[in-house]
């Protein structure tokens, strides 16, 4: 096993062991923290596909996180008030069932990623960063003025949605669900990275013109990667909404986009477990430093600056040595 392998195994062991310990010891808050970390990790695994593999520096992934959140919020809200959407025409019933909500969240965010990707991928470099950022703001301001679903105040959902065979109100059971989904997403990213599609994506990040020369469509691969990436982040958004039982426009804010990107970078770009390590570290810092000082973002900024300037492989890079694949 490589050193990175040991680091990854330790991380997985901690993500299984700590919540189980907390469950036995009766510390539900620790489980909630772990759930938060796992959901953030899922969002970052999504971004890592576009960022690490495709080289697409998206500063607008909060769009998909927010769409996932609002998919949950809107469906559960209609179930909660017993009134369908578009009552006069389509009369779509709301639902409290997680699998249905997840499916809707994934489809909606994939669709949004397709449209945003189609427009944004016409540009590269710094234009791409700014355009994805601007699309994020567009959704942010739209939800603020969307008073049917709470506008700036957001939507509260009173009871967590249900999953067949589980009691999602028990913290450890909801955690297990999120953990399983994270595992699935990691498995999918590992598969994608090793597939012909992933190799092509990797190649077209490094030398786009060579990929074009051998007759492959690098642009289309990037778009597909962006769509899958958006869909995974969207799923994370739906879970995040369920964790808090609340959605608001802040899920769309560009700070959210920045934070998802921070998870990836803290852990290490283009490493399979980088987003997981980054999200765990972020939540731990948020909790520990947040207790020490109201102004913990200063320390977060300093750590981030240190990593960007001096430790470019992120935490996994520090622990496991030499970066692979990231230029």
């Amino acid at each position: 096993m490589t050193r990175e392998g040991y680091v990854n195994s330790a991380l997985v062991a901690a993500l299984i062991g700590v919540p189980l310990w907390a469950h036995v010891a009766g510390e539900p808050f620790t489980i909630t923290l772990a759930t938060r970390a796992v959901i953030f990790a899922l969002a970052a695994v999504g971004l890592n596909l576009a960022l690490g593999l495709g080289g697409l520096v998206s500063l607008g992934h909060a769009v998909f996180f927010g769409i996932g959140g609002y998919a949950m919020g809107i469906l559960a809200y209609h179930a909660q008030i017993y009134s369908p959407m578009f009552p006069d025409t389509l009369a779509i019933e709301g639902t409290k069932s997680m699998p249905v909500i997840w499916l809707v969240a994934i489809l909606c965010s994939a669709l949004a990623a397709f449209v945003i990707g189609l427009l944004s991928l016409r540009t590269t470099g710094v234009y791409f960063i700014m355009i994805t950022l601007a699309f994020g703001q567009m959704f942010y301001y739209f939800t603020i003025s969307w008073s049917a679903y709470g506008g700036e105040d957001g939507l509260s959902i009173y009871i967590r949605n249900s999953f067949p065979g589980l009691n999602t109100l028990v913290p450890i059971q909801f955690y297990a669900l999120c953990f399983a989904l994270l595992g699935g997403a990691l498995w999918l990213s590992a598969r994608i990275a090793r597939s012909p599609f992933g190799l092509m994506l990797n190649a077209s990040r490094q030398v786009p013109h060579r990929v074009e020369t051998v007759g492959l469509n690098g642009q289309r691969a990037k778009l597909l990667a962006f769509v899958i990436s958006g869909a995974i982040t969207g799923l994370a958004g739906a879970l995040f909404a369920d964790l808090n039982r609340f959605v608001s426009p802040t899920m769309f804010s560009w700070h959210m986009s920045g934070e998802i990107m921070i998870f990836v970078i803290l852990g290490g770009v283009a490493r399979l477990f980088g987003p997981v390590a980054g999200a765990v570290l972020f939540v731990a810092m948020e909790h520990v430093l947040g207790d020490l000082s109201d102004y913990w973002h200063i320390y977060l900024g300093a750590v981030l600056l240190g990593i960007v300037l001096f430790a470019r492989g992120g935490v996994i890079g520090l622990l496991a040595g030499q970066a692979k694949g990231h230029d």
Partner: protein
Amino acid sequence: MSAILIVEQVLNGLQFGVMLFLMAAGLTLIFGVMGLINLAHGSLYMIGAFIAATVAGLTGSFLLAVVAAMAAGAMAGALIEMTVIRRLYHTDHLDQVLATFALILIFSEGTRALFGSFPLYLDTPALLSGPVTLPGGIEYPRYRLALIAAGLAVALGLWLLIAKTRIGIQIRAGENDREMIAALGVDIRTLYTFVFALGAALAGLAGALVGAIQSVQVGMGEPVLILAFVVIVIGGIGSIKGAFVGALIVGLTDTLGGVFLPELFKLFMEPASATQIGASLSSMAIYLLMAAVLIWRPTGLFGVRT
């Protein structure tokens, strides 16, 4: 819908536009010369506003406050250029985004720790307060008119600086070929620090000027920053002319859209939902505009086509 309202809103749009230009000019200059994307530009704007409010509170002089804001912006800019930004010129955009995002966190929380979470207020100077009567009997705030004039004056000054002076020649040469001008004996490090400080001073100036019509608070720079990004994407990154045209387009679209789109929808819808849809659409209008410009010209109106 009266002519007076239209003139007023056009003036508001112009005023918003020239203030956006002050931000966008610095961003586009920094990107054009150093190839750096600076998210922390909004923090410099915030610093300008806080320093202006503090100095005005201490001395009572608005002019002194504006000068102090520009100086503070330039100093903060030079400081972060020499400590952090300088290390980022040769890295990829991802590192630049993250490092400058980290600077935002540090500046915002630092300001909150120093000044608290409550907004500060900066009064308009006595000389410039009150309305002025324009031809046609339109009453318009004197201060906002002064902002338009100040913005245009800065735009003119910047154009003179870039087009007519020795340092302007160096800046333009630096945009084209940094190795060559370094080989010709221009101290490129000092030039970069100067350009960054110049952009920062403009951001500080914008913060101070706008601080008198808005509340001065932590996070005030970020909406402006993102609008300034939209401006330079529309105008073409690296182009001062593009920044000017883009700023006016964005300023006018945002202001006029907010007023006239709901009115437009009222023509064929019931008022309540017209206001709702008009408001939603107008908040998205500039982003839709930006998307349209990019489909038409992916490098902006005045950008270099590659």
